Each structure stands twice: as C-alpha cells, then as structure tokens.
C-alpha cells in the first residue's frame, strides 16, 4: 500500500482543478479498500468544497436539505482535531437517527472514520472513509491505517487549498536547519543511530525531526521525503 500511496501523491501533485482532485479521491477509494472516500472543506465564509465518491443522488439530497446542519460527523468534528470513529459521535437525536438511516440506504455504509483538518484562516475540512465492515473488522482496519489516513487527509487538504487559492497561498513549509541536517545524513546513507550520534541528539529526537520534515515535504515515508528534498534542492550533498 505504501508504494501505491507514494504514486498517489505524485498524481495528487499534478491535480489542477476539482475534477483532478475528485479523480484522486476515487483512486484513494481503491488504495484504501473502502466503500467511500470523502473530502469536504468549509471556509470561514461558509463556502463549501468537496471531492467524494458518494452517489450524485445522495450528494444532491444532502445539499438540498442542508444536512450539514444536523450531520453529527460535521457538527461533532467542527471543533475538534482528533480523528474520530463515527460510533463515538452522538446519533441519539431523532433527526440524526433518520439521517443515518437515509445515509445507509444511499450506500454510505454503516461504518465511518473521519479526520478533522484545521487549515489557515478558519478553514475547516473533513476527510472521511466509510464502509460496511463489521464493528470488529472496522476497528482493526482503522487502527492499522489511521496514520496513513491522517497524512493523506492533510495532503489532500493542502492540494485543495492550492487549487482554491493558488499555489502562492500555500507555500511549502520550510525545513528547519535541524530537519535539513537529519535528512542530509540519512540521504548520505547514515543509519539513524549514526545520524543521531553525529548530530549529538537522541534517536528519538532524530525520528521526530524526520517526521516533521516528512510532513512538510508531503511525503509518505523517509525515503520519499529524502527524494523530495533532494529534487527540490533543499539538500546539498
């Protein structure tokens, strides 16, 4: 799956409009092996933006009836930043139970897992996977994939902001001097132990520098991060 996610990030990088983003989200459905993938963004002015795999009929109905007002996933995630299994949300209201039944009838799935994303200037987005696995299988699935889901969620959001506002608005975050040091040594073939020793830091601290650099570079793993940093000229070796 890691190789496919790396290729996905390359394709995502090439997306230039909402159609490109939607195509990328469809690919993600296959890679993650779930029934649906949904990216849904709301900016501070209330403008909505989505790339998803739900049926057109369900999307129309959701918009027409303004279901975002009562959807526990949107309401429950709006003010949080930790990922959440839909089972942990409050579905006890009458409107919410009816909404859930309708969503299931439209093929959304009985299980869901959503990653809230807080962007710049009050922008808020949700990245969701939904499915029909059993409770037990779903718990195992989300536990195994939560990190990939969180990273992909943030990379899709980054791309969506770029499309919406232009690349200038979302400049790639600069690597810190420590992160450049760490990646440079890894690129030179040092083991993590050797790299940590030559920087006089613990391996744990080194790992965190690499983790932070990986996110800033939009990469799925260390090798991918090193390749991206090299190709963009951030590392001088």
């Amino acid at each position, binding site marked *: 799956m890691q190789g496919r996610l790396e290729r996905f990030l390359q394709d995502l990088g090439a997306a230039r409009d909402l159609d490109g983003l939607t195509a990328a989200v469809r690919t993600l459905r296959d890679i993650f092996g779930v029934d649906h993938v949904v990216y849904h963004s709301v900016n501070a002015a209330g403008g909505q933006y989505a790339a998803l795999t739900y049926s057109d009929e369900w999307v129309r109905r959701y918009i027409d009836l303004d279901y975002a007002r009562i959807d526990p996933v949107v309401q429950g995630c709006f003010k949080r930043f930790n990922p959440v299994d839909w089972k942990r949300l409050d579905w006890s209201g009458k409107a919410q139970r009816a909404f859930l039944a309708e969503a299931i009838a439209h093929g959304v799935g009985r299980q869901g897992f959503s990653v809230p994303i*807080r962007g710049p200037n009050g922008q808020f987005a949700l990245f969701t996977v939904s499915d029909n696995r059993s409770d037990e299988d779903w718990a195992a699935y989300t536990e195994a994939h939560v990190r990939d889901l969180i990273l992909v969620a943030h990379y899709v959001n980054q791309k969506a902001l770029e499309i919406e506002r232009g690349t200038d608005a979302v400049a790639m975050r600069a690597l810190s001097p420590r992160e450049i040091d760490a990646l440079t040594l890894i690129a030179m073939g040092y083991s993590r132990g050797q790299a940590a020793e030559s920087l006089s830091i613990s391996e744990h601290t080194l790992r*965190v*520098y690499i*983790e932070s650099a990986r996110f800033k570079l939009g990469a799925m793993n260390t090798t991918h991060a090193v390749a991206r940093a090299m190709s963009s000229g951030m590392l001088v070796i």
Partner: protein
Amino acid sequence: MIHYLSGDDLPCHADLVSQMFRDRATQFRGRLGWDVTVDAAGQERDVYDDEGPLYVICEDAGHHAASMRFLPTTGRTMVNDHFADLTGGPVVSPLIWECTRFCLAPDAPRHVTAALLLGALDLGLRSGLTDAVGVFDMAMIRVYRRLGWPPTLIGERGGIGVGLWAFDGRFRAGLERRAKANCATA
C-alpha cells in the same frame, strides 16, 4: 475517571473545567512562580486556550485532580512560538501534538499522575500519533521517569524543559499498574 474535552464538551463540564483553570493558577503562578496571567476569577489561561485545545482531565471524587492540554502542531503552538531555539526550528506534523500545562491539583491523590499519563497515552495511540512534544517544569522529569514514561529531553531554559513523549504501546502496562496500584493505597 478520565475526560477528553474539547469544543462543545467544555460548557457541559463547566465546573470541572473552571476547577482546572484555578488549579493551574495555583500550580504555575503559586507553586512554580511562572510568569502566567491569572484573571479576576483566579483562573490561569493563555492564548493557547483560545486555539481550541483538547484537555485530558483526570477527575477524582467529583473534582479536578490532574490535567494537560493538547494542540496539533499543524496549528499555533507554544513550542513553535516560544521554544523554536531549543527544538532547532518548528516541529510540524499531524502525527505530533503539543502537550502543555501538565497540572496537578494541590490535594491530588498520588495515583492520578499515572492515570492521567495513561489517559494521554491511550489518546495518542487511538489517534494514530507518533509523539507528543511537551513543555514542562524540569522537576517533573523525575516523576515521569518514575512512572515509566519518561520524555526525551530536547532542551531546557530557566527550569522549563522541552521534550518528546513517544506514543508507544509498550509503556501502557507499567502506567496501568501504577494507576491502579497506587489507587488502592491512596
């Protein structure tokens, strides 16, 4: 009992939350002498409390006993705003959260520290995190070590340390034992 409170959860637990802010005033201004702001109601708050944090709160016998505050490092954090010289630049990842304002109530029973750390570890494991980057009073390092989940120190200044906690399941059993064992004798 451990509460995970953010956003709309806070008004539902207003009493517990205001006790936390009062205990923070007692600890950070009173006991540690940090330069923090305490309002007329005796509550210590800072700008990061306005960033929509998630509080992990240990409640004991109906009262705030211990708590800490988490924020995502993809947003505004104290570590990146004020301690970037110690960390060598901003640490940013959706898999790393910042942990600050570790607070114990003045009369907190001993076991709550382990219970709170266990609650934090479980939160990190459940949320798919790799690490927390924390700001803490250096004297607390001994406590964290004794409880079996020590931070890796990145740097310190004026008695305040910045360190990393790995969200690693192998720390769980030890914390759980201490959270329970001390409970029985508390």
